[in-house]
C-alpha cells in the first residue's frame, strides 16, 4: 500500500476493513480542569495509513489532546475508541499495551542507560534474567531490522536529539503500536534533521499505522501530513480536512481564530478572551489618555537624538534544552515605547529574557540606557535600571515560602551596596509600596505563597517598578490572572512607558500585544523574523509566528491579506 501526500483522500481509507482495529475515534471528548475547559466536544476520526496533523497555538489544547488520546487523562465527557472498542485510560503503559504509543516532545529516557537498556526497560515483554551482551545483541538486531542506524550500546546522554527521537520511535514500534502520536517532534531538532524525521513519519503511515502528529509549524504540516485538524482554545475550529483541500492561509486563520468575532467560539469558553479584550481596551485607553503630555515632553527633554533604553545588537546564545537558541537578534526599545515580542512558545523568548537579565551566556552587545551591560552581572544590570516580571511568578518571581516583606526587600537589598540592613526601614518601605500597589495581604510576615496569583503579581510589580526602573522586561505578565488583575498589570506597564521608560512585553496573547505594544517583533526559531505595527492583523502576526506555507514572508503576505479581506467582506 502506498499513500502519497497529494493524492490521499481523507475518508475512503476506512474501506480497508483489515485495518479497522487501527482507527482511533474521539467522540464528543471534553476535558476540564476545574473551571477551565482545555478541550470542548472534540469529534474526530483518525484512519490508518495516513499522517494526521493536529495544530494549534500554545494553550489551544494540543497537549491535553495527546494526553487524552494516550490515556494519561480520562476525558471529562465523551470517549476515545480504538478500533471500535473504548480505550482504557489510566496510564501510558495501559495505552501502550492497547497499541497507542506516544513519542514525546521531551525525552524521558534515563540519561545513564544505554539504548538497549532503555528499550528493554520500556518493552512490554518481561524477561527476568538477561546478560548485558544478550540484551545488546537482541536489540541491535531489532533496531537494524527497523532500518535505524543506531549503536544500541551507546548511552542516552551521548545521543543527539535526532538520535534520541529515533530511540523513542524504535521503542514505540517494538511495542506493537497501532497508533503512534508524535508530540511536537521537530521542536528541539536541528533543521537539517527535520526532513529525515518527517520522511520517517511518512514511512510509518505507509506501513499502515495510524500516525498523529502534533505540530505548530505550518511548513512541516504541509510537508508531512495527509489531513489537518486545527484546535483553538480547546475547540476544533477546522475539522479534519484533507491537506489537498486547504491552503496555508486558511489553516493559519483557524489557528489564530480570526474568523470573525461571532462565529469563532461559543461563549462559555471564550469569556476569558472577551475579558482580555476589554482589559486591553481599558489599558489602552488609560495609556492613550496620558500619552499626549508625554508626547509633547519627549522632543523637548532630549537634545537631538535620545538614546534608546535598550539597544541589542547581534545577540546570540548557545543551545539549551528548554528553548530555542537566539541567532543574531537585534532589538531596540526607545524611551516611552512598549515593544511586544510575539512568537510560539519555545522560539527563543526564554533565551532572550535570560540573556538580557544576565543569567544566560550570550554574545553580542546589550546597551541599557547607553551603557554596555553585556559583560555585567545581574545585579549591575539591575543597578542600571533593568527590571523583570518573570515568566513564572512563583518560580522566578517570588519565594512562596518566604515572608512578603522579604520578597519585596530583596531587589532593593541586592542592588544597594550596603551590607547591613535597616530592617525597620525595609519593612516600612514594603508596607508603603505594597499598599500603593494594592496588594491585599494579612501581614508583612505572611508567606508570599498564601497570596492569590494576582496579588503575587502585584507584589512583583511593586518590587520591580520602582522609580529607578528604566527597562521593564515583562514576560507573560498577565498569564493566569483574572480579568481585573490583567487590566491592572496592563495599565501599570502603559503608565510606566508614558513616564519615558521602556517596556519589552513578551506575550503569547496576541490581543494583548496588539492592545499595548507600539511595535511587535516576532521571534521564530530564535531569530527576529518580522517587525509589525500593532495595527497588523492577527493573521499577519500569526503567519510570521508559524512560518507561513514555506514561501518567503514577503511573497506570502499580500496574498494572505487578500484572502482574509475576501473572507471578511
Amino acid at each position: 500500500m502506498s499513500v502519497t501526500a497529494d493524492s490521499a483522500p481523507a475518508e475512503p481509507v476506512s474501506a480497508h476493513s483489515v485495518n479497522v482495529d487501527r482507527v482511533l475515534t474521539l467522540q464528543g471528548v471534553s476535558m476540564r480542569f476545574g473551571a477551565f475547559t482545555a478541550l470542548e466536544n472534540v469529534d474526530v476520526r483518525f484512519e490508518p495509513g495516513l499522517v494526521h496533523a493536529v495544530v494549534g497555538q500554545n494553550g489551544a489544547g494540543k497537549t491535553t489532546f495527546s494526553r487524552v488520546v494516550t490515556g494519561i487523562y480520562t476525558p471529562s465527557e465523551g470517549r476515545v475508541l480504538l478500533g471500535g472498542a473504548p480505550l482504557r485510560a489510566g496510564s501510558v503503559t495501559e495505552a501502550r499495551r492497547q497499541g497507542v504509543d506516544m513519542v514525546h516532545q521531551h525525552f524521558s529516557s534515563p540519561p545513564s542507560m544505554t539504548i538497549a537498556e532503555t528499550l528493554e526497560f520500556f518493552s512490554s515483554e518481561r524477561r527476568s534474567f538477561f546478560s548485558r551482551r544478550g540484551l545488546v545483541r537482541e536489540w541491535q538486531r531489532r533496531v537494524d531490522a527497523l532500518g535505524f542506524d543506531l549503536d544500541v550500546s551507546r548511552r542516552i546522554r551521548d545521543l543527539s536529539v535526532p538520535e534520541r527521537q529515533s530511540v523513542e520511535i524504535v521503542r514505540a514500534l517494538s511495542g506493537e503500536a497501532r497508533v503512534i502520536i508524535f508530540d511536537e517532534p521537530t521542536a528541539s531538532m536541528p533543521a537539517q534533521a527535520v526532513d529525515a524525521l518527517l520522511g520517517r513519519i511518512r514511512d510509518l503511515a505507509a506501513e499502515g499505522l495510524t500516525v498523529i502528529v502534533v505540530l505548530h509549524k505550518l511548513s512541516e504540516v504541509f510537508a508531512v501530513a495527509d489531513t489537518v485538524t486545527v484546535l483553538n482554545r480547546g475547540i476544533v475550529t477546522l475539522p479534519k480536512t484533507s491537506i489537498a483541500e486547504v491552503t496555508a492561509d486558511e489553516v493559519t486563520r483557524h489557528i489564530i481564530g480570526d474568523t470573525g468575532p461571532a462565529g469563532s467560539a461559543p461563549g462559555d469558553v471564550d469569556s476569558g478572551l472577551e475579558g482580555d479584550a476589554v482589559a486591553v481596551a481599558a489599558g489602552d485607553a488609560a495609556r492613550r489618555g496620558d500619552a499626549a503630555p508625554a508626547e509633547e515632553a519627549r522632543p523637548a527633554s532630549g537634545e537631538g537624538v535620545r538614546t534608546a533604553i535598550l539597544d541589542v545588537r547581534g545577540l546570540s546564545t548557545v543551545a539549551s534544552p528548554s528553548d530555542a537558541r537566539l541567532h543574531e537578534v537585534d532589538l531596540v526599545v526607545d524611551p516611552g515605547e512598549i515593544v511586544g515580542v510575539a512568537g510560539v512558545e519555545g522560539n527563543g523568548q526564554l533565551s532572550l529574557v535570560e540573556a538580557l537579565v544576565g543569567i544566560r551566556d550570550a554574545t553580542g552587545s546589550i546597551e541599557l540606557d547607553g551603557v554596555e551591560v553585556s559583560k555585567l552581572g545581574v545585579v549591575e544590570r539591575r543597578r542600571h535600571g533593568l527590571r523583570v516580571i518573570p515568566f513564572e511568578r512563583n518560580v522566578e518571581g517570588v519565594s512562596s515560602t518566604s515572608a512578603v516583606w522579604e520578597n519585596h526587600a530583596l531587589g532593593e537589598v541586592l542592588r544597594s551596596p550596603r551590607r547591613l540592613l535597616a530592617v525597620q526601614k525595609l519593612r516600612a518601605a514594603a508596607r508603603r509600596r505594597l499598599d500603593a500597589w494594592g496588594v491585599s495581604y494579612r501581614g508583612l510576615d505572611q508567606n508570599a505563597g498564601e497570596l492569590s496569583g494576582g496579588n503575587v503579581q502585584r507584589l512583583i510589580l511593586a518590587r520591580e517598578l520602582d522609580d529607578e526602573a528604566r527597562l521593564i522586561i515583562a514576560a507573560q505578565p498577565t498569564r493566569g490572572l483574572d480579568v481585573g488583575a490583567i487590566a491592572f498589570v496592563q495599565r501599570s506597564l502603559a503608565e510606566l512607558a508614558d513616564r519615558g521608560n521602556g517596556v519589552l512585553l513578551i506575550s503569547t496573547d496576541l490581543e494583548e500585544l496588539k492592545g499595548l505594544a507600539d511595535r511587535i517583533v516576532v521571534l521564530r526559531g530564535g531569530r527576529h523574523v518580522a517587525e509589525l505595527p500593532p495595527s497588523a492583523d492577527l493573521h499577519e502576526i500569526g503567519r510570521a509566528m508559524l512560518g507561513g506555507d514555506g514561501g518567503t514572508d514577503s511573497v506570502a503576505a499580500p496574498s494572505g491579506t487578500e484572502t482574509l479581506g475576501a473572507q471578511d467582506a
Partner: protein
Amino acid sequence: MRDLKPVLQAAGFVVLAFLLAAVIFQAAGYDIGAIGVGLVDGAIAGPGAFINTVRWALPLAVIGLGVAVCFRAGFFNVGAQGQLYTGAIASTAIALHLPGPAWLVTVAAVVAAVVAGALWSLIAAVLKVYTGADEVLTTLMLNFIGVLVLDYVASGPLKDVKGSGQVASSERVAEDVRLSDAFGASPTLIAITLLLAAAVWIWMARTKGGLTSKLAGRNPVMVRWQGGNPNRMVLSSFAFAGATAGLAGAMHVLGPAGRLVSNFSPDLGFTAVLVALVGLLSVPGVLIAAVFFGGLQAALQYLPVVSDLPRAGLDLIQGVIAVMITLQLRWQFKRRRERAQQAERQPTPAATTTASSEGSSSV
C-alpha cells in the same frame, strides 16, 4: 509570636522520641524509672551535672550554628565531623609546636583550627560549584577521610611517644595555652560561644548576605533572577560552617580534652546537625537545642552508674529524633515538589485554576 507551630512541632518530636524510647526500654526489660532519674541527675540535678551539660552544649552550639547557616541557605553540609577533626589537628599542631608567648600560641591555634576547618569544608563546596557534586555525599565521605587522617596524625606525626601506646593520642597541650580545665565550661569557652551566636544572629537578621541566603534556601531561582550569586553563596556558607566546626575542634583540644585523641567524640558533628534542625535553624533555637542535647550527652556518661542501659540506649533517642525530622523534611519536600509539578503540568489550565482557587481563599 510570629509562628509558634514549628516550635511546638520540634518540641513535639523530642517528647515523642522520649516516649517511643521509653516504650522500647520497657519492652526490653529495663527499669524506666531508674533511667529517668539517671537522665535528670546526669544532666541537671547531680553534683557537677550541669557543668557537664554546658561542657557538651558549647561545642554542639558552635558547630550547630555553622550547620544552621549552611542548611538555611539550602546546602546540606553534613561534614561537621571531618571539619571538627581537621580543626582539632591544626590547633594541636600549633599548640604543641609553635614557640612564643602562651596567649599568642592560643590565638594562633584557634585561627589555625578555623582556617583548617574552613578549607576542609571548601573541598566539598568547590566540588559542588565546579562539578555539581551533591554536597550530602561529598561532605559525608570527607568525614571518613577526616576520621582516618586524625587516626594517622594521632598515631603518627603528633603521637605522644612517652604514652602507653594503648590509645593513639598526642602529648598534652601546655596548661597556659589551654582555654579551660578538664571540666570544660570555662568563661572563655562560654564567651566564645555566645559571641559567635551573637554574630550569627546579626548576620542572619541584619545583613544582605543573611537575607539573600535565607531566600536562596527557599527559592534559589528567584534569588538568581534578582542578582544573587549562587556560587559565592555556596563557597561562603561552606567556609563558615567549616570554620565553626574547626573552632569547635580547637575548643576541644585547648579545652576539656587538653590533647588530641584518635576518634574523639565520634558523634559530635552529627548531633550538631540534629541541634541545628531541632533548633529550627535559628540562633536561639540552636542554643536551646544545644543545651538539651548537651544534657543528653552528659546523662549518657552518668547513666551507667544507675542503670545497666547500654550506651546505644541513648543513641536510640537521638536516632528516633533524627528519623522523625528526616521524615518531616521529606514530607515538606515532597509536598513542595508536588505543587511544583502541578504548576508545571498544563501551564495554562493549572495557572488558571490555581489563580482562581487562591483568589477565592484569599480574604
